[in-house]
């Protein structure tokens, strides 16, 4: 899987309340409607400036705080394809994978706002490239189950296809198909 996009640079400790405020959820949890308020706590102009295919490039501990899943779905609904950060809070990381939003852990220092970036995920390799700067950084590889869920477009597709969670290596009969 290769994703190319434009870097949207954020700092450390961007929590899920900043990604989308709980207050907004009193009116709707429809991610498409909420996308207009994406990251309003960080920058009120952010949502309007997102172009389809943008990639969030963040610092440490992205998605900390509440485990609310709209924080992941609203990023997707805004047209963002992937998030790369030097670290994630675990609940956001899970929610992202479960919705088919690629998340990669890699050194993100020095990437400039608007710079073209590329993410590559293969079976035993994952990396993040700052294309303009010519910098290639190794990313933490994703375990097989996460790659399977991503490949299915998220947990819904995965469970529809398999009916249950499959292990690597499998303990029981292989998952269908």
């Amino acid at each position, binding site marked *: 899987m290769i994703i190319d996009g434009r870097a949207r640079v954020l700092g450390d400790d961007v929590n899920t309340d900043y990604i989308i405020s709980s207050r907004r959820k*009193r009116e709707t949890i429809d991610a498409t409607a909420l996308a207009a308020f994406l990251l309003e706590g960080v920058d009120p102009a952010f949502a309007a400036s997102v172009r389809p295919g943008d990639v969030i490039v963040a610092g440490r501990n992205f998605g*900390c705080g*509440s485990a609310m899943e709209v924080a992941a779905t609203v990023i997707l609904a805004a047209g963002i394809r992937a998030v790369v950060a030097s670290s994630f809070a*675990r609940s956001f990381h*899970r929610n992202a994978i479960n919705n088919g939003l690629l998340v990669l852990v890699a050194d993100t220092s020095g990437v400039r706002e608007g710079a073209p970036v590329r993410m590559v995920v293969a079976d035993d390799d994952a990396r993040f490239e700052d294309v303009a700067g010519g910098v290639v950084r190794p990313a933490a590889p994703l*375990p097989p189950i996460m790659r399977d869920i991503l490949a299915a477009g998220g947990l819904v597709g995965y469970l529809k296809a398999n009916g249950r969670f499959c292990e690597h290596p499998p303990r029981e009969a292989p998952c269908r198909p």
Partner: protein
Amino acid sequence: MTAKTMAEQVLSARSGTDARAGDVVVCDVDVVLGTDGSGPMAIDYFGAMGGTRLARPGTVFFSLDHYAPPTTDATRAFHARIRAFAAAHGATVFGVGEGISHQLAAERGIVRPGTLLAGADSHAVTCGALNAFAIGVGSSDLAAAMLTGQAWLRVPQTIRVRLDGALGAGASAKDAALTLVAMLGADGADYHAIEFAGSGVATLGMDDRFVFSNLMVEAGAKAALFPFDACTESYLFAAGVSASAYAPVASHAGAAFAGDRVLDLSAIGPCVARPHAPDDVVVLADAAGTPVQMVFVGTCTGGRVADFHAMRRAFDAAGGRVAPGVQLVLTPASAPVLEALMHDGTLTHLIAAGADVTTVGCGACCGTSGVIPSDGATVLSTANRNFKGRMGAATARIFLASPAVCGAAAATGRIPSSLTDREAP
């Protein structure tokens, strides 16, 4: 068999494998806990996954706590959907006014030592105080657990936190836990479990342990487990759970830890977390004198009986009347907490002194129900998060503190410089 941490033992037992830190395992989930915040999306995911029945209806619970009571058409509809779904599938719903999800899981004996709880709320980690592996998940993981009875988990490495000594006068579990969050940093326990150990554990009651486990998610922890002891056992007994109904875990001698930290409880003093980060913790003196316009006592961190008692003592010692220009908001974490405070006169006393009491649940904690601070207000709260906009007002400044510090501030209108002996919890 080699030595294992508590986390490795619970996840080995629940997955039927020899689970080690770093492994990815598929586990049977013992308790599946949703809220009105995460539940509606979980029901959507469940339907999209093709779900027609719950794998184990008796293990699925929803609490209507975040929108208690609902104040918009959208949130009324969330509650109606959850009620209809639970009725159709045999899950249990705790209604508006019954309490916060993880508080109910604990006090009703739903979560037990040695078990795996997946709660669609980041503060589900609170239940780790009962020697359980309790994690926060999102709505899709909740739906998957409802559908399959299982969750995939990466077995975390564990940071061991040794608690030494005992809390002195003026210090509370909240002060100690905030100090620990600052010590670890907001991402210091990302992807890790925390295990508490040491002689200080026995000096802490269950209400104190819930505060510790609760706040560890502010350092990124996946779970925060206390050892099982006589205190755990008597809490569970009072909740109607006999010792034959569970199998506690204790880490094996020689188990491998990713880190060892030490917190000397006897060195802890009152402190506050400053806006807008729970790990920006300073000693009380560094924030003393800051005028406050709202004081909030409640939430899954600071809304239990012992919290209101500590708050009342400090409030009375500092004058016993709500200071002019201050709104004191009290929101008990569960119906039994509310009842206990009614019976022992705490609420009558505090209402007469000028406090407002709101519906049991999350209240003003995250801006979904309850009182929203005024623009530009400074708030002092017993909660766990003080992110900008957290309580629904983007311009409010939220300080986090112990119930006693909140009590003193409610009576004086300012963050106190210290707690007198009479105010000490």
